């Protein structure tokens, strides 16, 4: 699976390999050095940038760098071609010479700079300079990679719980609806009890924790019905899925709830650790914890045993019902957490969140190599599975593949992953032939 992920990344890197331009501060640093090197410390430079934040940062930094190196910046244009024309006119009128006009990739193409020698002969034929460009895949740009991880965070968080449930021999279709329920519940609590848009951190946290706990309670209910009445998990979670979704609409009265403070986006959009989004940090932490639980604890061993052979586990003294109850509760809790992350990303809570997510989550688990029949699977396999799905979606977006086609491709990839898994287990026939045991 790791190999498949790497191949996908390589593929999308290759097809999105293209001309890249430095921008902002980094571009200014590079260009300043280049100008000083080319024209000496006494260079006279006019800076032309568009009127937008990134260009403004570029222009300001470039001015600082050039000035401190001893060059003189005659003027900084922040605006449109006509502003540049006016600036050039002023320079020409004041009889001052220019060595260089420093622009960005966008401004250097302005027609006003096309025939400087003819239009403004008195400027002394200044050279147009711009930051150096380089070639690099769009896919592999830092922002894009962070974007992929941030976008998959919700699905990946839910997939932890789903992996545990599936390894324990079950399935949980309710997680998508629980996203909506938790998101709505949290935002309603914030709006009605924690002070709405002026809510303090304490109230925010409490509201979110309450929503997650509520979601966990739904999961526990699911588990209780399954273990107590021995109803197939598919049916129970299908029922809970509908109830939770309907409940979310009822709670929110069909509306989005957006009376939340700006600080609410800390979890979903913040990036406090070396620029890594907080949601991604949370996701990775959960994966490590779940991996330790599944591979190093008694509970983890019990979860595998229950999914591998329920009766053998029971006859070995495993408290099978408690183990199953735990799996569904955990899945509910994590679905609630996923709902909070999503609400935070979108700075509101809506009952439409998370629709069809249960299917993407199950797909991530299955693509990650976990057997739907239980007892086998790895937590980190699921993370890879989630990334495979995210990378395919992202890559196709970069390639401008329309969303309908994306769906078809994604479906094919899921099928291919499962067939590949079957092949690995020994042949297309799938089922292991009973090895001629005698029963007379």
């Amino acid at each position, binding site marked *: 699976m790791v190999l498949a992920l790497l191949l996908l990344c390589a593929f999308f890197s290759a097809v999105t390999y293209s001309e890249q331009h430095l921008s902002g501060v980094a571009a200014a640093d590079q260009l300043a050095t280049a100008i000083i090197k080319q024209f000496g410390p006494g260079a006279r430079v006019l800076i032309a940038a568009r009127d937008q934040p990134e260009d403004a940062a570029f222009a300001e930094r470039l001015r600082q760098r050039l000035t401190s190196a001893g060059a003189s910046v005659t003027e900084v244009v922040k605006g449109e071609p006509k502003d540049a024309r006016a600036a050039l006119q002023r320079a020409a009128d004041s009889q001052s010479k220019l060595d260089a006009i420093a622009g960005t990739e966008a401004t250097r193409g302005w027609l006003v700079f096309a025939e400087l020698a003819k239009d403004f002969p008195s400027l002394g034929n200044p050279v147009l300079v711009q930051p150096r460009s380089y070639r690099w895949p769009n896919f592999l740009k830092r922002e894009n990679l962070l974007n992929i991880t941030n976008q998959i965070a919700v699905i990946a968080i839910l997939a932890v719980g789903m992996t545990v449930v599936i390894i324990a021999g079950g399935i949980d279709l309710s997680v998508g609806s629980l996203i909506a329920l938790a998101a709505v519940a949290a935002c309603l609590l914030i709006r009605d009890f924690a002070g709405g848009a002026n809510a303090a951190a304490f109230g925010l946290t409490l509201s979110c924790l309450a929503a997650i706990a509520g979601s966990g309670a739904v999961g526990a209910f699911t588990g209780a019905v399954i273990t107590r009445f021995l109803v197939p998990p598919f049916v129970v979670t299908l029922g809970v899925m509908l109830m939770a979704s309907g409940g979310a609409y009822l709670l929110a009265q069909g509306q989005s709830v957006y009376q939340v403070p700006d600080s609410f986006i800390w979890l979903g959009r913040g990036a406090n650790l070396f620029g890594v989004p907080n949601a991604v940090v949370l996701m990775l932490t959960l994966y490590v914890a779940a991996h330790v639980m599944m591979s*190093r*604890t*008694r*509970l*983890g*061993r*019990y979860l*595998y*045993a229950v999914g*591998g*052979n329920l*009766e*053998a*586990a*029971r*006859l*070995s*003294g*495993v*408290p099978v019902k408690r183990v199953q109850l735990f799996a569904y509760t955990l899945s509910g809790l994590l679905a609630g957490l996923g709902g909070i992350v999503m609400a935070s990303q979108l700075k509101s809570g809506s009952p439409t969140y998370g629709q069809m997510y249960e299917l993407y989550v199950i797909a991530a688990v299955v693509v990650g190599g976990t057997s739907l029949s239980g*007892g*086998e699977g790895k937590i980190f396999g699921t993370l890879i599975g989630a990334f495979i799905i995210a990378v395919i979606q992202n890559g196709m977006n970069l390639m401008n593949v329309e969303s309908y086609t994306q769906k078809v491709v994604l479906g094919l990839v899921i099928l291919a992953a499962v067939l590949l898994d079957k092949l690995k287990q020994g042949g297309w026939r799938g089922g292991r032939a009973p*090895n*001629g*045991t*005698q*029963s*007379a």
Partner: protein
Amino acid sequence: MPLLQMIGIEKSFPGVRALTGVNLTLAAGEVLALVGENGAGKSTLMKVLGGAVEPDAGGIRINGDEVRIESPLGARRLGIAMIYQEFNLVPALSARENIFLGQETTRGGFIAHDEERRRATELLARIGLDFDPEIPCRRLSVAQQQGVEIAKALSLNARILVLDEPSAALTTREVERLFAIIRQLQTHGLGIIYIGHRLEEIFEIADRVMVMRDGANVGERAIANFTRAQLIEMMVGRELKDEFPKRTATIGEPRLVVKGLRRGSAVRDVSFMVHRGEIVALAGLVGAGRTEVARLLFGADARDAGEIKLDGRSLELRSPRDAIAAGIGLLTEDRKQQGLVLAHSVRENFGLPNLDRLSRGGFLRLANEREEFARYTSAMRIKISDGEQRARNLSGGNQQKVVIAKWLARNCEVLIFDEPTRGVDVGAKYEIYVLMNELAAQGKAILTISSDLPEVLGVADRILVMHEGRVTGELANARAATQEQIMELAVA
């Protein structure tokens, strides 16, 4: 010319010679009883006839013509119908739909319901049954379901009908009905092979008896030429070689005391005790209620009534977990379904009931687990490549040793062995017997269930025989007991 001839049928499975040149003949209008112990090869022989198992050698003739039976469908086309203990009926479909499943009567692509109903009623009437063929099978009694199976066989124009323990789940009156049906089919010229354990029934219905043992036919004559004692002797009559280790028991005070144990009709008022250092065998035929008793003692099923005491302390036992905590271990009859998680490693299987000791604060002490498993592996000579090998890939004997190891590591006070040597080769059998002796010598109470009579006699100190959910007899001195005595009690 006989209806059916099976000549020199041979079949080997890995490690077992199931059939060693078996001959069978069946005449039209004859009821042939096929008898023998469990594991004698009856079922395998019938699977060859039914096309489910391909023989290594031998031939089959029907009405003198050589035939090849390559699949169950092929067998059906040749007029061979098999009726197993577990019926092949779709419970949700009606009797009519089941009878015509796969051979529906159609008119213009649509099922001709009226036509089918008429024929179904007719077929059922032929065997003396008159219930509405539109009733779903799950609502029919066992006897009625059996009737549906037979009607289905008739609808396929079966000439040879194999009945595998057809009376096992029937009441006495239903058995009489079944025999009436069989006699009627006989008059229609069908050849019937009847597999059964209940001797009185065999004497009632069979024309001829064929006895199988260890994959060979050891005797065959008209029922009139058999006495009951002769038949039993022929079934079990193998000479005891040195299959069992010497046993000198030191038997102490009672440890496990069971009084008035009941569960439905499977276990009816079972009482017994097992003493310190004693090996008690529960003998009887398959379905006599022995495994059910073991499951009650282990808390795997809930008992309707009765008391279970260990060392004078009354046990509640709501789950296997309770039983394990009380010091009871069960080696299940069905290793693959109940004893092992086949897809997991042998080390993990070994650790499963022992994780309370092999973990601290919820975290596994993997090094301890590996070390302890390695110790048991070498002490019990379990043949594995390493502890990470999947349980699925082990031989039967080694699988059983892993199961035993996991309970030994638990240090149980009472160990219940349900068919401990089924599917285990002779060498490993001996080692398992030695282990049982050692455990008894340590003062544990051992209860063993076995359908293998020599094993019961060779291993146990005392034998309890069960029949239809009751303990029908006790042989206090297993050394002096005979297989015939056990069989008498088991078919009583």
